[in-house]
């Protein structure tokens, strides 16, 4: 077996059709994760009884176990749950009809939710109490203060962590191959095994992921420049 540089290009082209799957996995997990994370963070910050305890148990569990384990647990437990519900209420559902990618969506969103809750929490905690008071003191209403003062600052504070989470989920989406979803990683395996050129295929996949990561970082940097003009040139 010898290195075949031209196959890197062939593999690269062969991998392109799998990019949308990877991006959709990332997008869905980040979006749903953000919603779950916001709810979790608020439940913990406002110490809502019961919910707060469940929320912190959830975060501790998810952050203490690998994402792969979450996926495997969901993959094996969700069908049981669906079939049980279906039998109980005679819904006529069948877990076999659920597309594989749905398991990845659910599991990745649950994973992302726990990490996102920390992102949201640190963003909200970064805002100085005085900012709200100052906004009210110049005559803004509470919604105005939140929209014009608090929210932009929270986003600016949370953006670096948010970017990390997005990139983390992009990279984590490679786990989808364990439930037979053909993302970039699974596609690389397919392309490689048909030609027995593993190194070249994975190199092509690595380059695509590298490019996507850098693109996400660039976009985040551009957004950050726009929204955090105020903090430029500080000592912190």
């Amino acid at each position, binding site marked *: 077996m010898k290195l075949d540089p031209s196959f890197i290009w062939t593999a690269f082209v062969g991998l392109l059709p799998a990019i949308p799957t990877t991006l959709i996995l990332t997008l869905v997990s980040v979006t749903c994760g953000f919603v779950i994370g916001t709810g979790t963070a608020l439940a913990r910050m406002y110490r809502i009884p019961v919910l707060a305890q469940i929320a912190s148990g959830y975060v*501790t569990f998810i*952050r203490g176990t690998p994402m792969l384990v979450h996926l495997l647990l969901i993959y094996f437990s969700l069908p049981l749950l669906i079939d049980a519900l279906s039998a109980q209420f005679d819904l006529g559902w069948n877990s076999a009809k659920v597309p594989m990618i749905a398991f990845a969506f659910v599991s990745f969103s649950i994973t992302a939710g726990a990490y996102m809750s920390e992102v949201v929490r640190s963003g909200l905690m970064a805002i100085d109490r005085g900012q709200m008071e100052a906004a009210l003191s110049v005559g803004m209403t509470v919604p105005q203060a939140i929209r014009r003062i608090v929210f932009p600052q929270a986003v600016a504070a949370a953006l670096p962590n948010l970017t990390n989470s997005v990139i983390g989920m992009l990279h984590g989406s490679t786990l989808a191959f364990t439930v037979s979803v053909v993302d970039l*990683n699974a596609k690389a395996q397919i392309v490689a095994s048909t030609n027995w050129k593993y190194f070249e295929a994975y190199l092509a996949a690595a380059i695509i992921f590298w490019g996507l990561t850098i693109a996400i970082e660039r976009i985040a940097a551009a957004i950050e420049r726009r929204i955090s003009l105020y903090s430029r040139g500080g000592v912190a």
Partner: protein
Amino acid sequence: MEYGFDITYIFDFIPKLLQVLHLTLAIVAGAIGIGLIVGLLAALPRLYKVPVLQRLSQVYTSFFRGTPILIQLFLFYYGLPELLKLVYIDVTKLPVLFFVIVTFGLNAGATISEIIRAAVTAVDRGQVEAAYSVGMSGYQAFARIVLPQAIAIAVPVFANLVIAMLKETSLAFALGVMELTGKAQTLGTLTRHFMETYIALAIIYLAVSFTLERILLLFERKLQRHMRRDAADAERRWRLWRGRKPMRERSPEVSGKEVPRYEA
């Protein structure tokens, strides 16, 4: 699924899985060991702005932080023997574990170099000036003043990395390594009780990361004792530490912005 859920299997599986815990821990320890050496080597050219090396180190960190570790594992497993063959080194007979530890080590090194860079930058410039003013050389100032303070600043982020590494070792199963996750999959296939195996697996990961977190918190306390404002505060934190389980926060000195850690 004719095999019903049976909780006793969980207790049955835990000791079986624990038999391979040492493999998982060996990967973590090996990776962190390699990562510390590589990370320091990669951080130095960027801290001292050494022309070409600085650029190389940048590409290295960018690549290992910009690609999924799973891809890196495959890339090294299939690619390293090819590359080394070019310089007449035969590694095809080495165990898979070797490739796994090297890959995780290089991956950790990229993050560690960023941690070191951020922590060193976070040390107040006045500290170096004071070191010079008492007559220290550049090396003495770095080794005796900057580095110890940087290490203290970096421990919390480093602790996060260790925990993240522990979780990422689960990916080694993809190359057929029989660590915790690999073993769990075998057990699952063997008994058809997947749910129970994975619950047992989750419990073990949870316990190990909890324990590691505690140990690292002890280090943090020891290394950061000079940062505490007063004894009463220290005492309160100590009680908090023993009584409750605090979720680890990033240290304020090194924000997530400077040392991002991609979790998976």
